[in-house]
Structures are given as C-alpha cells and as structure tokens.
C-alpha cells in the first residue's frame, strides 16, 4: 500500500497514513500500562547495561502471562546478551518503554541486568590496554 503514499508526506493535505507511517497501532503507554518508570525496584537502566537471561527463570506458565512486548524482549535476550540500547532498536520500541518492560522482567526473575561501570572506577588500565590492542587487531 505504500506506493500510494510515496512523495506525499504524511502532512500533505488529504493524504492518508498507511502502515508504518500511521505510527504504532499500540501506543507506547498501552504497552507499559501507563507507566513511565520501571517498577518498585527503581532500577535505572543505563543504555549500555547488559541484559542476560536469568539462569533460573520462572516456568513457562509464568511466561505465558507476559505481554507480547515482554516476550519479544525475552526472545532477543535469549539469542544474545544485549544492551538496553540494542534491545530497543531490535524490538523497535522507544527506550523508555523498554526500560519499563525490562523492570517487569527483572522483578519477575526472567532477566538479570549488569550494572554499568561507575565513572570513578572507569578506565582500569589493564582493560584499556586490552581495548587498544583489541582495536588494533580488528
């Protein structure tokens, strides 16, 4: 259906919005149940915080209760340890939404989240050396 809308921006008078141009069918606030912040655990998910699947996750019965967005995030995490930013891009969801959903997954024990290195600890010389050598070897 997209050929109809080519050249005609969504703002053009009388034009119709189709498919992706019409925006998500489910609005972000609906996915999060109106929440804008992760739940009571009050975790601040850094963009590069790494999300890993918990070794001892709840059973499939609990998983069946999750929403579709929760499940798609979980599927992405299972494939590979990912950063919050990557999850947002791959799931095609705003970062704010991903943070709320990850908060749920964290609280129900599906995932674990690494804490980013605090600035005071940042560049450990050994690690920096490793990064430089690694970059050279690329």
């Amino acid at each position: 259906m997209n050929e109809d809308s080519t050249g005609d921006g969504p703002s053009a008078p009388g034009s119709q919005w189709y498919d992706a141009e019409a925006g998500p069918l489910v609005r972000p606030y609906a996915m999060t149940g109106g929440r804008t912040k992760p739940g009571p655990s009050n975790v601040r998910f850094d963009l590069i915080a790494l999300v890993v699947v918990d070794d001892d996750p709840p059973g499939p019965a609990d998983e069946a209760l999750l929403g579709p967005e929760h499940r798609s995030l979980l599927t992405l995490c299972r494939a590979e340890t990912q950063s919050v930013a990557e999850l947002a891009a791959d799931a095609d969801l705003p970062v704010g939404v991903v943070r709320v959903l990850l908060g749920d997954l964290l609280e129900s024990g599906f995932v674990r989240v690494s804490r980013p290195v605090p600035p005071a600890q940042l560049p450990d010389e050994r690690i920096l050396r490793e990064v430089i050598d690694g970059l050279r070897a690329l």
Partner: protein
Amino acid sequence: MAYERSERTGACDETDSTALALKILVAGGFGVGKTTLVGAVSEIRPLRTEEQLSRAGQSVDDTGGVDQKTTTTVAMDFGRITIRSGLSLYLFGTPGQDRFWFLWDELSQGALGAVVLADTRRLEDCFPAVDYFEHRKIPFVVAVNCFTGARTYGAADVSLALDLDRGTPVVLCDARDRDSGKEVLIRLVEYAGRMHTARLLDSVG
C-alpha cells in the same frame, strides 16, 4: 580514595567472568559524519534507537499548528565493537540538535570518552560539543573529518582555532574509512587512560 582502589581491584578480577561494556560518544555538528563514523567501525549495522520526548521538548519545540502533538522522537545511532567475549565497546552518535542536550547528560554518564567530529568548513558547529566535554571533564579527542574539497588544515591549526586545552588530541580522519575510525578510537582510549592516571596522581598528591 584508597578504598575505591581496592574495590576496583576486586571488581577487576571479576570482569573476566562478568560482561563489561564501555561507552564512547560521537558528537559534532549536523551532517559532519557521526553516523558514518559509527557505521564504519561498528561490527553490527548501525542501529537506531528512539527516545520519546514529552515535556522536555515541548517548551522549545515550535509546535504551532500542531498543538495536539505532545511527543517528539529523537533518534540516536549506535554501534558495537566486541573486543573479546565479555568486553565490548558501544558507540553512541549524540543527537546534533541543541535541544537534546539533556539526552547527552544521560549518554555521557559513565562514558569512557568522546570523539568530537569536526568539519573545517564549519568548525564552529563543534564548539558546543567541545565546551560540553571540557566542562564535564570527559576525555575527548577532536577528529577532523577530511571532506574531499575542503581545504586541509594541520592538527595544530585546528587545535588553535578551537582553543583546546593543552594535550587534547586532534586527529585527521576519514569517517568513511574503518582503519581511520579505529585509529581515532585508539587515540581516544589512550588519552582517556592518560587523563585517568593524571587524575589519580592528583588525588593522591
């Protein structure tokens, strides 16, 4: 600060088993090649992630005529370089527009350092980024993206024109070229290491 050090050594032993992610920002004016640079060195296709803005942008966004529009979406580019299993570098292209500065604050938190991309034909475009990182004492290098057709300047000229603090590296690069991009990152990591050591010495002495 001694306790911080011992904590760090403790954490360091752990890092072999726990995944560690480091963050580097790529800043600079609009169209200077931030996305290109991220794409050139990243091992994954440059991903874009969107941050939903609401109140923060409202006061500055000219929403005349679209009063019902209460959210704006801003996209950030990012890429990844895996150094080894459990150690990766994440690159974030910062949104160029000034009104997204509040996003920079989040992005720069815990960042290893930043690359400020500059175009010698519009050097003033990178002043805000230089200011930002200088004020927050975030180590950065200036990478001059050598566009074809632009007059080439030496690193020293650029350093002078930007009134950089002594020691801030200036690198000439080609943002499209992977090796050139890698070199910029290496210079940044080396510089970040030097800055950190100097600060440790300062805090001791």
